[in-house]
């Protein structure tokens, strides 16, 4: 079963506050969602949610995401195991409409520490937002 350890929720919250103070979008959970996780970066913030909600080991999953921030040209989604230095055996298909998107065909094929990476590009630059989790 997946036990997710999101990186620094406190940090994310603090950053959200700073951004809000600076007049940036606070990036609330999309109104039509229940659940999901947030990763806040300098330029963009992403809300994402996987299906199934607990990411399984060795089975395909998909996810949806919603971005806050300046316009987005492209989003790539990747998986990476930093301890083993390998990624996924599958290339996810990403759809993007405005700031909302989906990714299909992901698979974390081993237990252990995984990073889910959103690689976002737009006129404002490029940013990688990373969620880290340990799958058992």
């Amino acid at each position: 079963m997946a036990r997710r350890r999101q990186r620094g929720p406190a940090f994310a919250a603090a950053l959200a506050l700073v951004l809000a103070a600076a007049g940036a979008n606070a990036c609330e959970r999309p109104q039509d969602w229940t659940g999901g996780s947030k990763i806040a970066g300098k330029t963009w913030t992403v809300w994402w949610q996987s299906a199934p909600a607990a990411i399984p080991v060795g089975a395909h999953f998909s996810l949806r995401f919603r971005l806050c921030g300046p316009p987005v040209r492209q989003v790539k989604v990747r998986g990476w195991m930093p301890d083993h230095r390998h990624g996924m055996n599958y290339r996810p298909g990403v759809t993007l409409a405005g700031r909302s998107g989906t990714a299909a065909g992901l698979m974390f094929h081993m237990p252990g520490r995984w990073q889910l990476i959103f690689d976002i590009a737009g006129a404002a630059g490029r940013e990688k937002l990373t969620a880290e989790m340990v799958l058992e």
Partner: protein
Amino acid sequence: MPEGNWRKGIGGRELAELGAPISHCQMTDIVKLFAVAFCIQIILGALPAGAVDFTAAEQRKILRHGPWPPPAPPDPSNRVSGAPAAAAFGRVLFFDTRLSVSGAISCATCHRPETGWTDGLARSRGQRAVDRNALSLFNLRFNRWFGWDGAQDTLWAQNLRPLLDAREMGIGAAGAARLVRADRSLSCGYRRAFGAAPGADDERVFVDLGKALAAFLETLVTGRTPFDDFRDALARNDAAGQARYPAAAKRGLRLFVGRGNCAFCHFGPAFANGEFADAGVAHFAGSGRADPGRFGGIRKLRKSPYTLLGRFNDDPARTTAVKTRHVRLAHSNFGEFRVPGLRNAALTAPYMHAGSLKTLADVVRHYSTLDEERLHAGGERILRRLDLSAREQADLVAFLESLTEAEPRRDGGIDTEVPPCR
């Protein structure tokens, strides 16, 4: 007490550690006084839960290797998956040598029920020699990919390959379809399985043979093993049940989920994560050629008409085609082979994709003395030279042997009687 292979060579002391029932105590060599002493302890119910106590983290890792058997819904890409009449027809096809050009080779030539549905050879021989070791046919319905290189994405497509490969059976699509149409008994079996006589389209009839064979092979699910009994006893917190599992197997299991790193790849109830890896085995295909492994497998898959993305998928929604659509070809796939499941592995020697290792002890020694230089530079960092002691190696073997079911089915396990064709 199941009578699996894993009990071979267990002495009085270890038998006592099994927490064996009284009948087994009586069978032990009573000359060994300490064994008798242990037996008395068992009778008194005083034996502790076993010499090995697992930490909470270890227990979680052990539990995910079950429960067994897992649910096995029919394969939506095969309209006769799970149908007894198709399984019965598939069983007939499996043993029919007329499906080879020489009339001498059947599927069972290389997949013999008595030897764990393999041939016991390092590399198989059909019409001619092939490059690889025959995979066993247990638990196929839980595979994601088929073949050592995963060149097939369904069981039915995998079954077509030997019929097309001139080195194996080589009869070809037209030859196989002609045979089934011309033979009264085979065409009757076809009709029973598919509800209509074989049609005029050779390729359709041919693919249907792969699907009937798949319906048969899906029934070869392995039974419960000593490991499963232990695992479930752990889940129920049943100390007596846990005590029945030999201490050597427990120590081997600890290595398997722990320092050995085995469970990264040999993951889940089938002890395989369904993917591919380089386990440090030389991949020469003879005569100086290298076996490209997964790299070649993905390329073959992409060229094949018999995949989930092709016209022979019976599922219009293509619900299981995600893997095929998204699979990624990478240079690191070169020399990778499918992580094999380990249930009943004790029955399917020799091991590895070209049968290079003769026994499970050889496999364990391979991992223990692994040549790290041979693994991909800059590749995965999971396998390490383990430098296991002789006892640790024996423990790991004892654990692997405890994944053997008591009585492997040799009949294909088709319980439903299907009326014979006339």
